């Protein structure tokens, strides 16, 4: 049992699987001796050797393609995209191969791979180091997209992702990599890959979010509580497939929903959740479904990034707006 951060929980899960499954290899740029630019693979090359924790040449298409090739031959590769902004050259392999191999071959060849990528803004980073384009991948049939938002969920979900016999994109909210520590038992227990986590119960409004916006959302819920508004908070965690039943159930109870994401709004994960409410949850709705999101603009360089990202206050304001509309 140890008190660790989210990024340490990532390392811990990787170490656990490297130790218990010889088919697992970790690969990517700078994941070896350097332990990754965020130290998510810190110490692993030293412990498991550079045949298990492999520094690759700087070529993302190659990394993704080799990861597919490794997985297709029965290994369980865990590749890293150094930042989500550099995942684009991997997309052809993710969409055309990882997501399709089992279906294409009617189960003959499978792709038990994981691609990890730190994502999101707010860390004062250079251009293209702050992207949140999870929606692109959530749209692609055949891959799972998982986003942890706490150390223990990072540990359990990453273990599940590595063990899952199908490809998983594992997106790590880097803004909260070191936000707080939590006790994580290193017992190899995985968490389910198709369930939301209810972080807070409430009766007036359902706040749905994932990744680093969990922080602002929980803060908003606390502040709303003080003003007499009881907010339920749901961490979606697995944005594909998404556990809409839990969200629908919650909205059935509260009648109101606000979805919070850092990503741009247009055709995003928040759109899907809201659209499902407009279909399957329409009769429960007491107020418009609102979305608190990044703007449909380029994530700015860091001088303006705070003005791009949703704030606790914006969440509170939006909840207040729909409470008023429906009171």
């Amino acid at each position: 049992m140890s008190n660790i951060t989210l990024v340490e929980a990532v390392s811990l899960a990787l170490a656990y699987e490297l130790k218990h499954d010889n088919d697992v290899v970790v690969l990517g740029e700078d994941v070896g001796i350097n332990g990754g630019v965020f130290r998510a693979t810190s110490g692993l090359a030293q412990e498991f050797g550079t045949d298990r924790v492999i520094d690759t040449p700087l070529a993302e298409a190659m990394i993704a393609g080799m990861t597919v090739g490794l997985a297709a031959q029965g290994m369980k590769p865990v590749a890293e995209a150094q930042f989500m902004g550099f995942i684009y050259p991997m997309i052809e392999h993710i969409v055309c191969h990882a997501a399709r191999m089992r279906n294409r071959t009617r189960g003959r060849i499978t792709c038990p791979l994981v691609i990890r990528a730190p994502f999101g803004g707010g860390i004062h980073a250079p251009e293209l180091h702050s992207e949140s384009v999870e929606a692109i991948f959530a749209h692609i049939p055949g891959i799972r997209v998982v986003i942890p938002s706490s150390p223990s969920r990072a540990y359990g979900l990453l273990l599940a992702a590595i063990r899952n016999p199908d490809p998983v994109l594992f997106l790590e909210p880097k803004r909260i990599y070191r936000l707080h520590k939590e006790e994580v038992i290193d017992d190899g227990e995985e968490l389910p890959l198709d369930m939301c986590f209810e972080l807070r119960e409430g009766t007036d409004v359902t706040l749905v979010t994932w990744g680093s916006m969990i922080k602002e959302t929980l803060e908003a819920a606390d502040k709303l509580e003080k003003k007499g508004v009881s907010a339920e908070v749901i961490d979606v965690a697995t944005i594909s497939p998404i556990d809409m039943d839990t969200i629908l159930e919650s909205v059935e109870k509260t009648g109101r929903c606000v979805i919070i994401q850092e990503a741009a709004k247009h055709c995003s994960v928040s759109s899907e959740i809201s659209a499902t409410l407009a279909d399957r949850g329409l009769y429960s709705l007491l107020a418009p479904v609102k979305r608190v999101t990044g703007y449909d603009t380029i994530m700015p360089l860091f001088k303006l990034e705070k003005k791009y990202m949703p704030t606790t206050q914006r969440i509170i304001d939006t909840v207040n707006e729909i409470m008023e509309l429906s009171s």
Partner: protein
Amino acid sequence: MTTVASFNVEYKQYLSPAGELVGDITPDIATDFEQLKALYETMVMTRVFDTKAITLQRTGKLGTYASSLGHEGVHVGIGSAMNYEDVFAPSYREYGVQFCRGVKMSEVLLFWGGDERGSNFSGPKHDFAWCVPIATQNTHAAGAALSFKLRKEPRCTVSVIGDGGSSKGDFLESINAASAFKLPMVLVIINNGWAISVPREKQSSGETLAQKGIGGGLPSLQVDGNDLIAVHHEVKAALKRAREGGGATVIEAITYRIGDHTTADDASRYRDKDEVENAKKLEPIARVRRYLMNNNQWSVQQEEQLLERCKRMVESEVKVYMDTPMPPVTDMFDYMFAELPHDLVSQRKFAQELDK
């Protein structure tokens, strides 16, 4: 001024278009007539199959089909040089390789007939399926090769790419990967002169395509891709080197796409008839036959018997294909994941209802 590195690209041919042995050595395969005859038969079978497949397409019994006419030498040369345990990462027209490895003609037809079950073929279960996105198979092959290296298995991957595809990043990155990790793999550039309508010269002004391998410091050579013996011998040598830890090789095999790109293409729009006629004179099957006949290993009668046999086998495979029942609508769902997620469970049910 210092020269820090020097490179040559050699060209290998052992069997001339006239069916005579040329070149400075005589590869083993050239005098192993039993094997050579078997390979010859596979080449002929591949061509008979190819002709039939085009007919099936023309008569509405098959979808778009990519002919391998003229490629039989390079394909069977590769297929016959590999071990069963090796992994082949094909593009989309290397039937000759696959027939050597146990893929069935009916499976090829299923694939082009719009049925995923074709890719669940009887060839080595570890071979990759047909790969539509150009060059991506090359990095898969690199990954597979790395798995053999990590597991210390004496296996190699062989992967192919077209002259057109040799321009794409994935091919070039796979050369780099092979170099960086010293991978047990062989990359064969099948230069058939054309990438749909784009001629080889427009892909690169480099003297050869083989020289792309020099970028990673890999041994890089050209072979006459219409020379079964040269392809077989050089691929085999490269595989031996790879298996012994010597790393990867890039082989450019020069052949010619005698047919259209696929049945959806009309090469007469962009290509001279003369060029095709000239190329036909160099095609790979006739020269093996001449060589076998010159050496009294093959007769007109044997040829006739072979053609008969091929036709019968092709017909019986076509029958298997034509008799295959439609896949159930649920197949759309049932191979998406090892375990179907809940949202797909309901979509599956819906599709099933709709199909009633």
